[in-house]
């Protein structure tokens, strides 16, 4: 059973990322805060007797469900279904070379100061915007896998899909982000 301190530390460590994830989905600060609050309370009420190691996965699952509940309450199901569409075509991704983007990334560590076209904060805003524009499932997979640092199996469990789907979503998200950022001249 997670102690009060373990639960508190866990919530503290995850609350800002959870807020951002909810914000990507609902694009409204107040709604995102409500969703995070709802998620925290659901976790505390139903799963506070679970070991601390189980909390991250449970939290992500509850957060996803709480976000879906918010959409249901808002009666914008059609918009959600549109965003959740996984049938987007390759869109030229096959022609895009991620190695090229990463070469640019590697080069960026050597470029500092006057050569940088945009400031660091502007880069972060641009990255934020591009992540927000990803299709929902791709964004979820990408954030769980790389931001929450879940492995593929944990991400699949949190998203309720297969590991193969997680890999596909992550790969598409990475390629889409790399391409979008490169087109803006952002080299991270």
């Amino acid at each position, binding site marked *: 059973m997670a102690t*009060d301190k373990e*639960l*508190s530390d866990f*919530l*503290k460590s995850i*609350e*800002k*990322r959870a*807020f*951002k994830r909810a914000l990507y989905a609902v694009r409204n*600060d107040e709604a995102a*805060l409500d969703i*995070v*609050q709802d998620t*925290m*309370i659901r*976790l*505390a*009420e139903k799963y*506070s*007797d679970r070991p601390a190691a189980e909390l991250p996965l449970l939290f992500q699952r509850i957060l996803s469900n709480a976000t879906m509940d918010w959409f249901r309450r808002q009666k914008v199901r059609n918009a959600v279904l549109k965003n959740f569409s996984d049938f987007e075509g390759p869109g030229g991704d096959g022609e895009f070379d*991620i*190695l090229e*983007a*990463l070469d640019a*990334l590697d080069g960026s560590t050597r470029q500092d100061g006057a050569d940088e076209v945009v400031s660091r904060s502007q*880069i*972060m*805003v641009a*990255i*934020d915007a591009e*992540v927000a524009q990803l299709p929902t499932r791709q964004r979820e997979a*990408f*954030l769980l*896998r*790389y*931001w929450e*640092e879940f492995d593929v199996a944990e991400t699949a469990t949190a998203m309720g899909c297969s590991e193969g789907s997680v890999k596909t979503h*992550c*790969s598409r*998200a*990475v*390629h889409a*982000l*790399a391409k979008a950022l490169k087109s803006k001249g952002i080299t*991270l």
Partner: protein
Amino acid sequence: MNKSYNLPSAANVGALESRFGLRVAAHLSEQSLQLGPDIGERLRVSREQALQRARTVRATQVAASGGGMTSAGAAILGDPGKGWWVTLGSALPLLALLAGLLLIQKWYADVQIAAAAEIDTALLADDLPPKAYGDAGFVEFLKAPRN
């Protein structure tokens, strides 16, 4: 002209994707630290509410798991948190009480029987007054079969 040596293998692509993903995530983490103080405060309040709720739930669970039940209550209603022998041990005082009540009842009945027998013996052993033979009840008593 074979250009295939320039193409990364599937494993390399996976590694490159991971590197890229982690770098983007690092920027997202950096940005998430710059959330406004009002949002940080709201998150803190939410966290406190959740912790308070967790404490309430735990207290309720402890109470429901037998913390407020007496040993006699546990013996009668059963207590899933304890073993069979503990439950049996808790029932022993109740069984001893029942046995004591039964013994007292038997002892009281024996005392009453002994007292009645003593009176009957005294009556029968005493000299019988002649008027007794005029009593219909006594006559019936004499006529009744003896065991």
